């Protein structure tokens, strides 16, 4: 395949102990034999570890946090585009998606600049919010744990009945989950979630079983571009996968297909499931972006980030059918060596371009 080199913007280079997906997305693009272009890292913080991963991004830019508003993001993207001529952006942070969806609307900035994206609509983004989980389950005919949406502390006193007994999960509307064993604990967690994430708060039945996630891409017309299911084999203390393995249960691909058919989802997503003791897959959440472990899709033969980059550029991208069952990932925490030149460039100019000083500084002083 000899197509023009692509310049792809990738956000979420915060590869911490609770990593953003950007580093995995960039690695997957870099690894694809047909990818000959440039990768432009778009970071919120000068200390995002992905900035200092040599051989990952060609150019790096600091962009404003979503809380700084759409105008600030628009100005920055326009400025970056003038320098590197972006073909597409793959946003990887939940909180930035509404901004990018708005910028990608017809007549919006990204269309004006000719920058492609492959994102769901705002309506779909809201459909998969935690507060809408049961409605999503009904629409897609996928089982969900019993869930109640709490908008007042008084709602807590209606919990603990036969339908939703203790222990149960108290979840923030965007992030975080705490197990409550009594109404007193539930009150504590409720206030903590409201303080951090605002209302509503979600109470969800505690179901035990095996955690299984699917990284998948929908074509926006009800079809599936690809899907790779993974069973978590090692968890961090935050419940994040530190290791996992691709599995071949056809029921999981059927769930992904059902999700795309029912929602006409456009773009990448992570479908989080729990296989309960009866063998029923319960839908816990759908994340509207790539998961941090999406490099596994490249390792297993589907390279979904590369598929999304092509789709965002309007290039033909046939569905991926096969993947290698039994492909594992195991994370590693390594210390990267960085130079003051790098830190200075990203801190003062808000940008960094490799090669700067690609050799690691290890000479004796």
């Amino acid at each position, binding site marked *: 395949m000899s197509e023009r080199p692509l310049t792809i913007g990738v956000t979420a280079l915060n590869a911490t102990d609770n990593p953003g997906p950007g580093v995995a997305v960039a690695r997957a693009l870099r690894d694809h034999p047909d990818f000959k272009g440039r990768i432009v890292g778009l970071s919120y913080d000068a200390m995002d570890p992905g900035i200092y991963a040599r051989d990952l991004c060609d150019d790096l830019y600091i962009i404003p946090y979503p809380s700084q508003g759409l105008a600030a993001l628009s100005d920055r993207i326009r400025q970056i585009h003038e320098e590197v001529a972006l073909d597409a952006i793959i946003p990887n942070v939940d909180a930035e998606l509404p901004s990018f969806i708005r910028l990608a609307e017809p007549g919006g900035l990204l269309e004006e600049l000719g920058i492609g994206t492959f994102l769901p609509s705002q309506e779909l983004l809201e459909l998969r919010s935690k507060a809408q989980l049961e409605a999503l389950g009904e629409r897609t005919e996928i089982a969900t744990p019993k869930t109640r949406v709490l908008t007042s502390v008084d709602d807590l006193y209606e919990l603990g009945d036969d339908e939703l007994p203790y222990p149960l999960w108290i979840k923030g509307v965007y992030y975080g989950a705490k197990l409550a064993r009594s109404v007193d604990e539930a009150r504590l967690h409720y206030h903590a979630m409201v303080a951090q994430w605002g209302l509503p708060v979600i109470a969800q039945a505690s179901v035990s079983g095996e955690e299984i996630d699917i990284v998948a891409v929908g074509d926006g017309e009800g079809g599936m571009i690809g899907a790779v299911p993974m069973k978590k084999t090692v968890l961090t203390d935050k419940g994040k996968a530190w290791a996992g393995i*691709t*599995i*071949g249960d056809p*029921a999981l691909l059927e769930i992904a297909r059902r999700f795309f058919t029912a929602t006409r989802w456009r773009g990448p997503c992570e479908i989080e499931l729990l296989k309960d003791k009866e063998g029923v897959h319960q839908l816990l959440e759908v994340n509207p972006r790539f998961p941090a472990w999406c490099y596994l899709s490249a390792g297993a033969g589907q390279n979904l980030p590369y598929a999304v980059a092509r789709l965002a550029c309007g290039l033909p991208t046939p569905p991926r059918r096969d993947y290698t069952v*039994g492909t594992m990932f195991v994370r590693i925490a390594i210390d990267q060596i960085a130079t003051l030149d790098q830190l200075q460039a990203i801190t003062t100019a808000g940008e960094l371009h490799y090669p700067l000083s690609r050799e690691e500084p290890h000479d004796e002083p």
Partner: protein
Amino acid sequence: MTTPPDDRLRELAISDTGFVFDPYSGATFTVNPSGLVILEALRRRADRDAILDLLHERFDVHGEDLERDLDEFLHLLRHHGLIAEEGAS
């Protein structure tokens, strides 16, 4: 949709060293040489008596201990959904 145990048993990836990977669940486990013989026999749809004969022949072991060990192993496989309730009887 649940995958029938027969299919799961057939799809197991079993190495010569006794390392077993279940592609449906992602579970891995190891079996000793007699476990390996039992798994291979089950995949050929051998019944309990045939498996006992095979174990007698291959490992020169006899008696109630062998039957008990086989039943325990079959119980484990049932527990993991790899054989049906009446799978080896």
